């Protein structure tokens, strides 16, 4: 068992927020989903105060070894989440982490306070990084903005607070350090990288939202570097993600300093990817423990040219 902010997890693989809808998956696959749940904890899709329809289609663009999405955080809003989603998600066999986003500090505070007393909720994740919505960049791109947000919501709940960092920041390590200083319990990264694609016929942006977030194996190397950077700057547990498709990718993120690893886009290709990655990772770790155990952290030359 793994202890993550006081939450017991069966293995280190969770899902990235917004990459798996457990309610829709149960509709599709039935109760087999519960018997064979692929993640050690479930991170739900971002909930906002008011309901959102999301961005106009098209919302997806396949790109080399990845995907650009412009979904726009569709959700039922806080009231709808509490009435419809939370009871269904409480039936999952794993701890529930609720991801929230607000357009102001006060809104985030309202969301955090609403979940603070819910026993169904094990932890909260603050989305300060969604690049699809205008103000998503603001709070997570700047260390002092991030610190001010975490300081505002920290007194509102005793539950673990995870800050989901955006890779679209000048110095992600500084943002992580600011979150730690303001009382966060963990950080998670990377969210998607901002990207775009043009419609080959019209030569205008393909995505209805104009730009979108790039994910998949295409971002794996960026995730590894950012997780390592953040892990070297904070003592908080780090949830690492970005292009994880196999156990070896999770193994790399753990080596870079992650405590947990999230699977995202790969679940679109393989609905049981979380369980598969966890199994492959366990095999790798077990083989290595019999040969040469790894110690310490990754060393990089101080004078190295990037």
């Amino acid at each position, binding site marked *: 068992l793994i202890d993550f902010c006081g939450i017991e997890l069966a293995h280190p693989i969770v899902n990235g927020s917004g990459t798996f809808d457990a309610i829709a998956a149960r509709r599709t696959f039935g109760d087999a989903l519960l018997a064979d749940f692929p993640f050690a904890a479930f991170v739900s899709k971002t909930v906002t105060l008011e309901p959102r329809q999301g961005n106009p289609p098209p*919302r997806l663009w396949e790109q080399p070894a990845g995907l650009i999405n412009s979904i726009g955080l569709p959700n039922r809003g806080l009231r709808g989440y509490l009435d419809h989603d939370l009871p269904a998600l409480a039936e999952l066999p794993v701890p529930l982490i609720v991801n929230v986003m607000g357009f102001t500090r006060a809104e985030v505070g309202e969301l955090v306070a609403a979940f603070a007393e819910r026993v169904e909720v094990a932890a909260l994740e603050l989305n300060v990084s969604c690049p699809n919505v205008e103000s998503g960049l603001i709070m997570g791109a700047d260390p002092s903005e991030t610190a001010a947000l975490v300081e505002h919501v920290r007194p509102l709940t005793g539950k673990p607070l995870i800050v989901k960092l955006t890779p679209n920041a000048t110095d992600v390590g500084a943002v992580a350090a600011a979150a730690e200083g303001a009382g966060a319990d963990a950080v998670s990264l990377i969210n998607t990288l901002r990207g775009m694609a043009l419609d080959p016929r019209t030569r205008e942006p393909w995505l209805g939202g104009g730009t979108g977030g790039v994910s998949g194996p295409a971002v794996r190397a960026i995730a590894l570097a950012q997780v390592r950077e953040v892990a070297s700057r904070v003592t908080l547990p780090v949830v690492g993600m970005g292009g994880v498709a196999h156990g070896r990718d999770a193994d790399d993120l753990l080596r870079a300093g992650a405590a947990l690893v999230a699977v995202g886009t790969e679940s679109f290709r393989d609905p049981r990817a979380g369980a598969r990655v966890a199994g492959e990772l366990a095999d790798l770790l077990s083989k290595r423990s019999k040969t040469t155990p790894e110690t310490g952290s990754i060393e990089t030359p101080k004078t190295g040219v990037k």
Partner: protein
Amino acid sequence: VSAVTARRTPAPFGRRRGLIEANRAAGAYRVLEVTDPGGPTPRPGQFYMLAADERWGGGDAERPFLPRAFSFLRAGDGRLEFLLEDVGPGTHRLAELRPGDGLWLTGPLGIGFARPEDGRAPVLVGGGIGIVPLAGWQDEIGGPALLGFRSAAHAEAAALLTDADVATDDGSVGHDGPVTDLLAESLDADPDAVVYACGPPAMLEAVRALCAGRGVPAQLAMESGMACGFGACFGCVVPTREGYVRLCLDGPVLDAADLDTALVPGTGH
């Protein structure tokens, strides 16, 4: 049996590996015959997410990366048939699969066609590759098939259905003009019909408008780019009068009365 259960066979959890049994030509298209031992029998209109088990993302190949959504042509006895046309990296890779090659399958997914109500006679309208979900449905409920194609080579696929009346864009086979001309004639002759349609967005929109104008109920099997097929990615939304719906969960068959338009940005080729 509830109305929805009759339209939907649930999927086993996860993807499973089928084997290509045959890959044969049907005019300008290919028919893939796939073994799916132990897989459930789908309902007409449902679909599968398909990906070759080798050279499909993650390794040497850059694209295709995501699985592709396909309605099944016919199914039963642990076998599935799919129809495809080589138009992009995904369909190109699928088209080159040979007997013995592996195919990842997730499905059956979504909700299929609903049976005709109060004695209305079914009329099936298909355009191009959109004839696919109509084949298994015609096996079950009968009715004439009005099928539109680009060319004579594509129109050879009309043989996959029975009692087909063909129209072509270039006039090389059958009626010279849109398939909706044939539908208008059919509804003139018997307005007590229910229309089941699948095809390119412009055809579906023409069918929707024609049926709406005449008060004829219609069910449209629609298409939208999908990353997952099981509601995870929220990418395949289609605007309806009730707001956006995920086509993989609430479709792919939608009631035409729920739509202001069947033209969805990003669909079609």
